[in-house]
C-alpha cells in the first residue's frame, strides 16, 4: 500500500514536470510560428536541453524509475541553465538590445533559466526517495492516454527538428537570424 502510494506520487510529479516542460516548448513554438519570432542559436540549444529533460521523465515513465534516467534530467537541466545564463549575460548590460518579446515581464531565456533550475532542484529531491528503486515492477502499463503523451512529445520534437532544418539547414545556426533558409 505504502509502495503504491509512493509510486502514484512519483508518477504524478513526473507528469506535472513533463507537462510543464512540454508547455514551455509549445509556447516557444507559438512564439516562433504565430508571432514570427525566429529562434537564435542559443534559444535552439535551450530547447534541446528542455527536450532532454522531457526525455528523462518519459524514460522514467516507460522503463521504471532508475538513477540513470534522473541523470539525463539533471544533466539536461544544467545544460539548459548554462545556455540560458549565457544568453542573459549577453543582454544584461544597460544599452544592450534584448532578444524577443517578454512574457509576464521576463524574456523567454530568463524563464528558461528559472524552469531549468526548478527542474534540477525538484529532480534532485525526488531521486533521493529510495523506495522507488526497490520495486522491479514499477513500469507503466501503456494505455491510450500515455501513448498520447508520448505522441505529443515526439510530434513537438519533430516540429522543432523541421523548423531547425528550415532555419539553418545542416549548417551552424546564426546568432541573430532574420529569415528562414528554406
Amino acid at each position, binding site marked *: 500500500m505504502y509502495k503504491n502510494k509512493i509510486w502514484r506520487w512519483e508518477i504524478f510529479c513526473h507528469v506535472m514536470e513533463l507537462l510543464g516542460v512540454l508547455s514551455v516548448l509549445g509556447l516557444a513554438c507559438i512564439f516562433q510560428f504565430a508571432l514570427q519570432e525566429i529562434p537564435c542559436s542559443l534559444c535552439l540549444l535551450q530547447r*534541446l536541453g528542455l527536450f*532532454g529533460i522531457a*526525455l528523462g521523465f*518519459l524514460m522514467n515513465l516507460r522503463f521504471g524509475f532508475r538513477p540513470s534516467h534522473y541523470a539525463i534530467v539533471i544533466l539536461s537541466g544544467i545544460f539548459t541553465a*548554462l545556455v540560458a545564463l549565457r544568453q542573459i549575460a549577453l543582454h544584461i548590460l544597460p544599452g544592450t538590445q534584448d532578444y524577443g518579446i517578454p512574457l509576464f515581464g521576463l524574456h523567454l531565456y530568463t524563464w528558461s533559466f528559472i524552469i531549468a533550475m526548478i527542474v534540477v532542484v525538484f529532480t534532485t529531491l525526488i531521486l533521493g526517495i529510495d523506495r522507488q528503486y526497490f520495486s522491479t515492477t514499477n513500469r507503466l502499463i501503456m494505455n491510450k492516454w500515455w501513448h498520447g503523451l508520448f505522441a505529443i512529445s515526439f510530434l513537438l520534437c519533430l516540429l522543432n527538428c523541421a523548423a531547425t*532544418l528550415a532555419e539553418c539547414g545542416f549548417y551552424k545556426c546564426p546568432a541573430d537570424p532574420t529569415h528562414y533558409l528554406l
Partner: protein
Amino acid sequence: MAFAFIFMMLAFGLTWMGKRQVIIPIFYLVLLMGTFLFITDITTKLSIQL
C-alpha cells in the same frame, strides 16, 4: 544543430517504442553535440569582441 534535433527525435521515438539499450548513448551524443555548439558560440563571440 539540425543533427542534434534529429538524434533527439530518434531518442523520443525509441523511448516510445520501448527500446532502452540505445537511448542513453544517443542522449549523450546529443549532449556532446550541444556542448560543442555552445562552446563554438562562446568562442566565436569572444573572438569578435577581442
